[in-house]
């Protein structure tokens, strides 16, 4: 079986989530990688060094500059004549593109896989991770998205794949990219951080959230996350949301502060190695999954903890 993996990148570097997708794909067969973008020769060379990748296809065209699904899907579907499976990371961009490819191929996609159980069999979470389904595809080809936290990252170096240009399919003329507001932060990225400090509704407002959560995160060298309630209330931007419908994280240590532990939040963090919870309500559901719990008012406890570290 030969697999085409879509390599997500930021124009210069390969994203970690793509490395996890490569690992999942190597469990199915021989891996070829697709780098699509504008002026992406450097990304193509980087992809060629990923351990486990045999060949890199580079589609260099302005139409792919912003990973618009309308332009990428026909390119990928066109290449799939030579492949048995298409694999993408389950990032927001992967989730945007892969089903469009699957529909063009008339294939049922397997979303967000946790493991590869056989040539066409996978496990995946359903109902916010409250159940794990094992599903077997009966389609001739596979389209799969991969949960990054469930697979180790492939080594970014050590491989020596051949690099081959492929012709683009051009601009579909359906959509155009207007702009992006991407916050730059000195902190580690949420989905790859070793330590995460998250805050919930209890943090009152944006200033209080920053003044309380950030100093502790700084002490721990941690990324900052949040519950939906904290994001909806505008304490932090939307990309901080951890959960069923936000980011899935699995750090070594996850510190949940003023978060009750709704199933939708747990869905995004319960695979963390150690969960620490601080909540003033001793019956908060978060304590049912926490390894270390502290029942306390966060407004006194958190500054004191930060000071003592």
């Amino acid at each position, binding site marked *: 079986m030969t697999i085409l993996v879509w390599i997500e990148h930021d124009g210069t570097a390969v994203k970690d989530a793509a490395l996890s997708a490569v690992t999942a794909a190597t469990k199915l067969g021989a891996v070829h990688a697709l780098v699509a973008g504008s002026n992406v020769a450097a990304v193509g060379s980087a992809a060629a060094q990923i351990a486990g990748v045999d060949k890199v296809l580079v589609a260099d065209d302005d139409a792919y500059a912003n990973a618009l699904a309308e332009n990428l899907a026909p390119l990928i579907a066109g290449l799939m004549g030579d492949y048995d499976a298409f694999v993408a990371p389950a990032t927001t961009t992967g989730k945007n593109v892969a089903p469009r490819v699957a529909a063009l191929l008339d294939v*049922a996609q397997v979303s967000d896989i946790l493991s590869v159980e056989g040539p066409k069999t996978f496990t995946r979470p359903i109902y916010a*991770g*409250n159940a794990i389904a*094992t599903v077997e595809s009966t389609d001739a080809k596979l389209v799969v998205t991969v949960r990054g936290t469930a697979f180790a990252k492939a080594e970014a170096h050590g491989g020596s794949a051949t690099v081959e240009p492929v012709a683009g399919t051009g601009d579909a003329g359906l959509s155009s990219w*207007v*702009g992006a507001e*991407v916050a730059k932060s000195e902190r580690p990225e949420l989905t790859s951080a070793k330590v995460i400090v998250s805050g919930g509704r209890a943090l009152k407002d944006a200033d209080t959230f920053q003044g309380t959560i950030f100093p502790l995160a700084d002490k721990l060298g941690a990324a900052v996350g949040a519950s939906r309630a904290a994001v909806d209330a505008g304490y932090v931007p939307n990309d901080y949301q951890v959960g069923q419908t936000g980011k899935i994280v699995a750090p070594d240590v996850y510190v949940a502060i003023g978060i009750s532990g709704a199933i939708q939040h747990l869905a995004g963090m319960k695979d963390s190695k150690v*969960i620490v919870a601080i909540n003033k309500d001793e019956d908060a559901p978060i304590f049912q999954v926490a390894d*270390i719990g502290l029942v306390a008012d966060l407004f006194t406890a958190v500054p004191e903890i930060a000071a003592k570290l």
Partner: protein
Amino acid sequence: MKILVPVKRVIDYNVKPRVKADGTGVDLANVKMSMNPFDEIAVEEAIRLKEKGIATEIVVASIGPAKAQETLRTALAMGADRAILVATDDAVEPLAVAKILKAIAEEEQPALVILGKQAIDDDSNQTGQMLAALLGRPQGTFANAVTVEGDKVIVAREIDGGLETVQLALPAIITTDLRLNQPRYASLPNIMKAKSKPLATKAPADYGVDTAPRLRTVTVAEPPMRQAGIKVADIDDLVGKLKELGVA
């Protein structure tokens, strides 16, 4: 312009799902069912576009059991004009749902189809993108803001790094994210009024769609259970534990 909003009947988000002992699925007997929360946001967005004078008619559609009528009535009570139930007792996968929706869209010719980004039962996050592919139309997924301007729609999208804005040619497909709007509750008079709004019942075969599953469910199991750990007595104890973990 007309807007089509597909709505799915799913387990209520407040219910903790239980896996059936025989491993065939999740137990839905006597469980509270509701409209998929993302679909409520989709209905709300359509209603707001109608209130702004941009949309003229809102058609809601659901593929599912007879009980999905309740979900459609909820959407009608919120303010949709007309409903289509595509009745089937089978579990229909996103690809087949998208094919049925394509047939409905070809009949109804909506300028916008607004779906939820994800159904909270199967967590697939596929249907909108698949529908866009099948119709050959642009897609604005994970929408945080939607603005119609002439024959275009501007969609701000929630992405991993923040927000991204795209411009799509109409007709277009949109899927909703949580921050798009805050859905309204239906008022009692509107719930009464919704009872007499038109609801057509069809079958997948009416649209020529084969709904046989492509994915075979081998088994459905409980996830590994996490054991609750310890509660520390005080802050010093917690600080000590964090130091033991080597994170501080």
